[in-house]
């Protein structure tokens, strides 16, 4: 499980990109593609290696005027980390 102080960023193997013909964000990797739902895309766009998990949660709670989002965001980030989409930036 990812910790609140971690700074996740996209793994070098994956590229996050908006595809207008699909009207969705996608993750591109060697010879493959994952189509993301809107919440997943909002979270991954903020994984830049600088923002902490706590900051990402706080931003999303403001952007969507919805609390608490912590558990949902951490669950998704942990899954993304496990799948190799994300890596934790070196402190």
């Amino acid at each position, binding site marked *: 499980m990812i910790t609140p102080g971690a700074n996740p960023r996209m793994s070098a193997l994956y*590229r996050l990109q908006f595809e207008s*013909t699909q009207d969705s964000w996608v993750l591109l*990797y060697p010879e493959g593609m994952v189509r993301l739902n809107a919440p997943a895309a909002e979270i991954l766009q903020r994984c830049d290696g600088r923002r902490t998990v706590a900051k990402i949660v706080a931003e999303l709670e403001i952007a969507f005027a919805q609390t608490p989002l912590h558990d949902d965001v951490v669950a998704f980030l942990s899954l993304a980390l496990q799948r190799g989409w994300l890596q934790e930036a070196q402190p």
Partner: protein
Amino acid sequence: MTPWGHGAARPPLWLLAELTYRCPLHCAFCSNPVDYARHEAELDTASWRRVLAEARALGAVQLGFSGGEPLLRDDLEELVAHARGLGFYTNLITSGVGLTSARASALKAAGLDHIQLSFQDSTRELNDFLSSTRTFELKSKVAGIIKAAGYPMVLNCVMHRFNLQHVERIIEMAERMGADFLELANTQYYGWAWLNRAALMPTAAELRAAEAIVEAQRTKLGGRMKILWVSPDYADAKPKPCMAGWGAVFMVVAPDGLAMPCHSARMLPGPALPNLQAMSVREAWHDSEAFNRYRGQAWMDPTCGGCDERHHDFGGCRCQAFLVTGDAAATDPVCPKSAHRGRIDDMLDAAAMDRTDGVPARPLRFVPGARRSAGLVFRSDENSRACSVPGAEPC
């Protein structure tokens, strides 16, 4: 509505650009057409730029540069830069021959996202025998160049009776080289592999043993390097979801501009395939007879049309149906429901008989002329010209 009455298709997502059929290797399982020597014409740079732009505008997002050996095109860097600028995720599928440090850097600067490097085996002897070239040391060096340049690297190894017993060493080699993915591509029998099927065919038992090793290694790796085990569909007796459906997501453009729904479609009987020298990608994808021929489910015979699996396997492979039964619209013969499944079983039985006949393992030797050896017909211009003559026995 198209003239073919199937309604609007979804856009393509995948474009495979076969830039050239020229190749320094002579692999006995090459998926290029055996008569490639008849199709030497190549699209020029401007035409490729147009094709890439048109495909991207339709919605294609994954782009493979393949061949032959795509590094033989000296406009590769320009095409990669153009593709990356259009927003493609760009994949280079290469033998490694010609990939110097300088070229790897230039391609990186152009925006190349990923490199897939082929190996034929984990041993120099077999790698060099199967490709009929001395390339093992070079490929090993190129793997280092790819990693040093910071690319994600996929190692691809075509699997068959000669190297299945080496599967554990192939996995260890890929891990040692720092591959992010390893694709163990069990031979699919088209092109040169179809020509060489009797020599390449493993037994079902050999495949099961190798797959068990792959499973054990996956557990050991714990996700460090992902391993893709391409289904050996003859032995698995399960039709593959070929191209995720005909004309569903995938377009291959051959060196001469032929737009194909799959790598092998050139050899299917029927009306001519569209050529992008004279047609837009949009028109070929949506309106050509070829891309609509087996699109959707209307073409299916009752065996497939009434089977729930059609939603998952999309009716399997049309080229396999043609090669084995002579009818491209037939049920994929690997399926147990096919009336022709017996022909697949005969081939597997022949492979098993071959082992029990007490024939000693055939000696492996380097073959500079790439002629027939150990029951194999190597891919070469000379052999391709021989295969291009109707009814000719190759070499």
